[in-house]
């Protein structure tokens, strides 16, 4: 690998004579009201950076409103090193909506910059002026976004693209990479759309060139290859599609809708179908019907939808019908915060429903795991005839990252345990077996008949409320959870294997933990983390071994009551240091690092 290319630089924090280091890790936040095109900005910047081979992560934070008062932000962190999380603070704030961006300034790091619109019509009161809130240790760049957008598009639309042009100049990013992204984004719509957007971009670029000729410079490694970009929702949908998914039923809900949209588009290409049904109750019903008929099926939802589905999930457990339910978690309870992240659905996933109701619960930590994990989920559901609740979250689902995904494609994948020819004729739908899994005959196949039901039943499927039958059948359903351990991946230990501080976490929090561990290591404190996609059941031995080798255990998670810590305590009898992060934004690596160091201090004293 060649060293980074280097030319002269003007450091913004130290205007002159300061350090000559180029920026290598930058976070840019676009803030606007919904409709300002904040997301488009994020996509274009991410696309451009990925094409330059930079590692990056994009996070969108929306309000639930479409237009009007609601604010949304997109933050893009890009670096010539690996990006594990969104990090702490941002380098650049682009205020597409001035007033709404004011509160974002607190996240801008000293020496960073704020790009604000300087052609807002009318008298702008001081309190509403973004420029008025820029402290002296941050550079403010006024750009007439609205005016230039008007010049380019004839309307107020296109402020975002003007701002992209400004950003491109100010950070000396290669223009062509952006123009290429504009082509990708607008080229399909119409040649006029492309033309006006390129014009808007160029106007923003030229404006800054004329008014702020001194630009910052970024380290771009020459040898980097262009990188593909995925969101967790993309990866998840494609993972399922590549792994034999044939049917999808769902109901729109933020932040899961995208999965359905992808399936709607892709499934018919392989003989599958997506149906948007009237509610989540209908969605889970459809999925169970399809699995019953022998097709791999899935639904995706968020907390409120999962709540609605609880009753049907009980039926799926009882009737041993496979179902894959993706829950892209958002802030709860009830309608809660549809556009904010929280890891609060663990309990309903584990325990929601009536009766003794065993089900599989999984939680991916990375975008890559969204892909591989959903494939495992489909396999487990079909093989073990059980509902699988797959807990993604808003942050994992919607943020975009550069990642490499090892494609695994098997479009007719089937893990159904089929009956032996010898069993046919005396076929029992719920036959008692060693692993609890009964061979499954599907409609259309010859060899037997059955009726499934939500009532307790005998191995043949007949309703039966006798105590010993209920015990036997309950025991059978729980036995499947133990049996599937042979198919589960072992848990991984990351970080310093010899460290005494061990961290166990779940879901998307892992990225911030890994970066927090690196920050702590820079201060001389070593730690390790156990990474496991399985919540229930788990590879219990690897957990016990990890706990035994750690003097203190930290369990960080984004919910109020420590739902995962509660599970670990009851399952393994440990007494961990719990970190209940009340966050609607991505978890701060600095906070994780501080906690590691605090725990280290406690250990040494």
């Amino acid at each position: 690998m060649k060293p980074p290319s280097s030319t002269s630089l003007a450091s913004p924090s130290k205007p002159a004579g300061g350090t000559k280091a180029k920026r290598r890790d930058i976070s840019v936040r676009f803030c606007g009201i919904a409709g300002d095109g904040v997301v488009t900005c994020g996509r274009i910047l991410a696309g451009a950076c990925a094409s330059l081979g930079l590692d990056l992560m994009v996070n969108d934070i929306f309000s639930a409103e479409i237009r009007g008062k609601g604010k949304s932000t997109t933050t893009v962190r890009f670096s010539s090193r690996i990006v594990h999380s969104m990090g702490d603070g941002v380098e650049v704030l682009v205020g597409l909506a001035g007033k709404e961006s004011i509160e974002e300034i607190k996240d801008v790091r000293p020496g960073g910059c704020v790009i604000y619109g300087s052609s807002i019509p009318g008298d702008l009161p001081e309190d509403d002026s973004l420029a008025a809130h820029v402290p002296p240790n941050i550079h403010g760049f006024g750009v007439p976004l609205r005016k230039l957008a008007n010049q380019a598009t004839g309307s107020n639309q296109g402020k975002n693209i003007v701002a992209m042009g400004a950003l491109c100049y100010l950070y000396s990013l290669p223009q062509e990479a952006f123009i290429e992204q504009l082509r990708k984004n607008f080229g399909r719509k119409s040649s006029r759309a492309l033309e006006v957007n390129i014009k808007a971009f160029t106007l923003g670029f030229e404006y800054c060139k004329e008014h702020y000729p001194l630009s910052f410079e970024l380290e771009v490694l020459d040898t980097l290859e262009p990188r593909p970009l995925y969101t967790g929702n993309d990866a998840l949908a494609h993972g399922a599609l590549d792994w034999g998914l044939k049917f999808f039923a769902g109901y729109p809900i933020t932040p899961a809708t995208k999965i359905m949209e992808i399936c709607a588009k892709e499934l018919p290409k392989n003989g599958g179908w997506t149906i948007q049904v009237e509610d989540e109750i209908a969605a889970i019903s459809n999925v169970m019907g399809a699995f019953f008929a022998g097709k791999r099926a899935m639904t995706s939802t968020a907390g409120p939808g999962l709540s609605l589905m609880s009753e049907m999930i009980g039926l799926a457990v009882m009737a041993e019908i496979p179902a894959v339910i993706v829950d892209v978690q958002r802030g709860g309870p009830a309608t809660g915060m549809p556009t904010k992240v929280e890891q609060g659905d663990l309990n309903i996933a584990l325990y929601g429903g009536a009766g003794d109701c065993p089900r599989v619960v999984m939680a991916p930590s990375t975008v890559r795991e969204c892909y591989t994990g959903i494939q495992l989920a489909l396999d487990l559901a079909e093989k073990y005839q059980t509902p699988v609740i797959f807990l993604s979250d808003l942050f994992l689902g919607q943020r975009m990252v550069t990642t490499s995904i090892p494609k695994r494609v098997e479009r007719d994948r089937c893990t159904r345990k089929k009956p032996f020819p010898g069993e046919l004729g005396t076929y029992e739908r719920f036959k008692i077996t060693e692993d609890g899994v009964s061979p499954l005959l599907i409609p259309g196949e010859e060899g037997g008949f059955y009726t499934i039901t939500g009532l307790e039943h005998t191995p043949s499927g007949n309703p039966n409320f006798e105590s010993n039958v209920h015990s036997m059948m309950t025991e059978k359903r729980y036995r499947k959870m133990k049996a599937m351990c042979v198919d589960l991946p072992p848990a991984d230990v990351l970080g310093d294997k010899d460290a005494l501080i061990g961290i166990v976490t779940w879901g998307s929090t892992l990225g911030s933990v890994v970066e927090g561990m690196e920050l702590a290591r820079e201060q001389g404190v070593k730690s390790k983390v156990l990474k496991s996609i399985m919540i229930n059941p788990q590879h219990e031995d690897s957990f016990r071994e990890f706990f035994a080798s750690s003097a203190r255990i930290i369990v960080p998670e984004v919910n109020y009551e420590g739902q995962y810590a509660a599970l670990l305590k009851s399952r393994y009898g440990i007494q961990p240091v719990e970190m209940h992060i009340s966050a609607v934004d991505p978890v701060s690596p600095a906070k994780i690092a501080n906690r590691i160091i605090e725990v280290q201090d406690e250990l040494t004293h």
Partner: protein
Amino acid sequence: MRYVIVGTGAAGATAARTIKRMDRDGEVVIIGDERFFPYNRYLLTEFLSGAVSAAELFHTSEEFFEAMDIRLRKGQAVERVYPNDKTIRFAHNEVMSYDRLLIATGRSPSLGPVLRPYAKLIQRYYTFEDILLIQKRLPEVREVIVSGRGLSALDLIQGMYRVGKKITYITRGQAIDVSTVESHLMGDLDSALAEREINFVHDDRIVAIECVDNRYLVKTFQGKELWGDLVFAWDNYTPNVGCLRNTGIEVKTGILVDLRMRSSAPEVYAAGDCVEIYHPTLKNYWINFGWPNAVEQGRIAGKNMAGDNEEYQIHETTLFNILGKPLEARWWD
């Protein structure tokens, strides 16, 4: 009481400090259109040639404003003053109110109708940002062309000479035109320039500039064609009074003020290079000259804004060291 100061140069920064010393509880906001912390413009040449460090150039810092409890708004231009409403409007349309206002916007090089169309081809030599841009371009520069009047031309020639560039100087008159310098020193100056092999084009002016292959072709009124890698040109240094246009505040070339630095509008003061001050013994308005005068005017303006009543005393001469010659420059002819 909210004091608003437009301009972060010597006058503005001094006024802010003076006000804050006299009125601890007063709110002081100081606004500058450059995006750097205030610095000493008179040291830019020294900085360019490496004689002065960034630390010496910058006379203020983040800590200074924090300690003094002065709110600095940098990189933001004030477009218009509304003395009747006691508000100012920024270029980004924000409207801000004041109780007392100080205009200390300084002055800057301006181009007349002949040079104006070539503004994009002319390198400015005035702000810290200009200097950084010149530093970036310097490695590819061998020859520079300078056309402009006054001490600033000498300063620029000095700077370019120190960084080893070949200089062509175009002037309208017979000799270098520095009316503020004692006439007996002019001879010294001429010989200093001659020693340094500066190409002197007199009785001429630029009428056109073209950019050809990253170099510049300058055409003069007398029909000369000169080549350079950088062109510096200006017609005059004019006070920055754009924000006062059509406000009713009296402006000649600069803002007209009395010896207490008051402009013609109530509660509006002005100080530094942007003003013309009425001098009772000279019986005329005069434009400020030099850093010490700007500092002094800022101090007086600040004191009077904070409720004192002091008159300005003129510093009559200033010492410059140009091309190794100590020059005593006077404030007027």
